[in-house]
């Protein structure tokens, strides 16, 4: 038997679908996991920044090298110089956190500007952005980054500027597409007809009200990208240099002892990379399904 119950609250008030109704079965799990990862990363960044570490990350203990996890005093074990892995993993977040934020700021802000120009102004802006997109697509991103490192210096901030710029066309295309879609609905024209100034229409009605979900999703996915680039470069020796820890150079340092059976010092940072990037990716995907209401194929 089915029961029909009048919802509490004023009659006729539209309540909309609840988050649970809009979500696919796994979306909430994705988002919950992603938010957990973001919380852990932000908290760890702050611990690292204020130096609240379980151990001195540079203190060597030659008597206790490549220790397994749960060794007394070292929860996650030690590396080949006997340095505490837990402290170094936490400190390793410094290597990508601020640079990653720089990268996503550049790609989201620059992409929004380009997207608005292409979608709202159209004409030759649209053409230029298409060519810019094609140009960046025709270079592998890593080659471009190595080029910048060779031309300037192996500084992670330079690299992240490149990551940010190469991320711009994706955001620009999405925004331009969204504006093209919004144009079919006449509310932008109606806003002009009501006499709202152009900057209010663009910033408030287009970007803030209609594109904010999209921008948050792109920022989340962009962070995953930035972490991947930073760790890859540090692994290759072009990024953060020893003794400053980065998850990438920790994997590299541990790899020398991997075949001798000491797989933990290299696996621990690798698992951290996997869990973190997965978290940001799933958060982006889950938010996309919840906020934009469509599945990525």
């Amino acid at each position, binding site marked *: 038997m089915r029961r029909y119950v009048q919802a509490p609250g*004023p009659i*006729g*008030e*539209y309540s*909309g679908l609840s988050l649970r109704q809009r979500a696919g079965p796994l979306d909430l799990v994705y988002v919950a996991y992603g938010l957990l990862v973001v919380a852990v990363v932000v908290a760890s960044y702050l611990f690292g920044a204020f130096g609240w570490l379980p151990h001195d990350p540079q203190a060597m203990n030659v008597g206790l090298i490549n220790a397994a996890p749960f060794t007394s005093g070292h929860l996650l074990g030690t590396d080949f110089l006997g340095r505490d892995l837990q402290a170094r993993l936490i400190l390793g977040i410094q290597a990508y956190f601020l640079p990653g934020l720089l990268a996503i700021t550049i790609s989201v802000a620059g992409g929004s500007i380009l997207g608005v120009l292409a979608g709202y102004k159209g004409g030759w802006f649209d053409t230029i952005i298409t060519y810019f997109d094609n140009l960046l697509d025709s270079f592998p991103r890593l080659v471009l980054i190595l080029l910048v490192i060779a031309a300037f210096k192996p500084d992670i901030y330079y690299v992240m500027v490149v990551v940010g710029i190469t991320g711009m066309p994706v955001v620009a295309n999405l925004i331009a597409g969204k504006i093209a879609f919004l144009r*079919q*609905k*006449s*509310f932008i*024209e*109606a*806003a*002009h*007809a*009501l*006499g*709202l100034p152009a900057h*209010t229409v663009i910033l408030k*009605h287009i970007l803030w*009200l*209609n594109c904010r979900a999209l921008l948050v999703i792109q920022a989340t996915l962009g962070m995953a990208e930035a972490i991947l680039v930073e760790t890859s470069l540090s692994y290759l020796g072009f990024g953060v240099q020893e003794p400053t820890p980065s998850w990438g150079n920790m994997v590299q340092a541990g790899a020398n002892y991997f075949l001798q059976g000491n797989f933990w010092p290299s696996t621990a940072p690798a698992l951290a990379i996997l869990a973190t990037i997965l978290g940001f990716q799933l958060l982006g995907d889950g938010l996309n399904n919840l906020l934009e209401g469509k599945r990525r194929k």
Partner: protein
Amino acid sequence: MDALLLAIENLRTYFYSRAKRAFIRSVDGVSLDVARGETLGIVGESGSGKSVTALSAAGLVTAGPGVIGGRIELASNGARRNLLDGLEKYARVTERDGRVMAVEKDERGWRKHSETLMTGVRGKEIAMIFQNPRSALNPYSTIGKQLVETIRLHTNFKGEREAKERAIHWLDRVRIDSPALRFDNFPFGMSGGMCQRAMIAMALSAEPSLLIADEPTTGLDATIQSRIVDLLAELKAETGITTLLISHDISVIQRLSDRIAVMYGGTVVETGRAAEVLAPQAPARHPYTAALLASIPSAETIRRKSYLQAIEGEVLDTIDVPRGCRFYGRCNRVTEAIRDNCAGLEPPLGEVAPGHKVRCWLYPAAGKA
């Protein structure tokens, strides 16, 4: 006080077809007068230039070359302002035999100058409502917030609280039930008719002197259409606002208009008082108006289940405008006596009765004008 609120003179708004390398003469020499307090209905088929005329008046034509000539005079604060004043220096029009052959337009300069002319006018003096009201509202903002935004922009109700009170007052005036609750509704939570009411509230909240209603009932259910028409009539009676009403639906025009302009192929072919233009036995009538009226299904045709009466031929392609009368190709009232005129010379708007003008060679007034 000036009796005329809006005077459009010889307005020309062209677009350009890249594929055919030719101008699309959407509005080709339109002159209209709207007196203070009256409702002028513009009627015509799709593509006759009704909406483009309205968009030109609101300075909302963005595609090139756009408005290339004419005057749009609006009486505001006791003075008449030409909304196209000084814009002619941005467009150079080359004509041969009265046809536009080339337009060179400084689009940026035009738009900048036009924006300075239109600030304080668009939304404040001239407000517009559109068809498909659901899509004319921002889907991600509540109607209350959108209403408050225009009220704070255009009126002296600047504070958040007083603007909200004013917004609820307007929602009430457009007959929205429990306006205080509706204030927090998003457009998707409301019916199309309700959205149009909110849109009307938004347009009128600035207390404009002219309301342009561009197909206000299109895209709504038939019953809702008549409710919106009722609402417009009631608001008209309450506020006495001057309205430029655009519709292809003669019954809507008939209910609301004091005067009517019939448009065809980018020109006005007939204009006069509503009662005269739509009178069943009008002494003088443009053949196009006659055909439009004949195409309204009557109760009789519906009862007999006979075919609906369509107008023969297709709407004038405004790229290939003939030299003579624009309706010549579809007209069934051409006589041998005037055939040469119809085919070769565009008839002027001749006055067949005081205030009633028809653009047709059938009426000797056209010859005299």
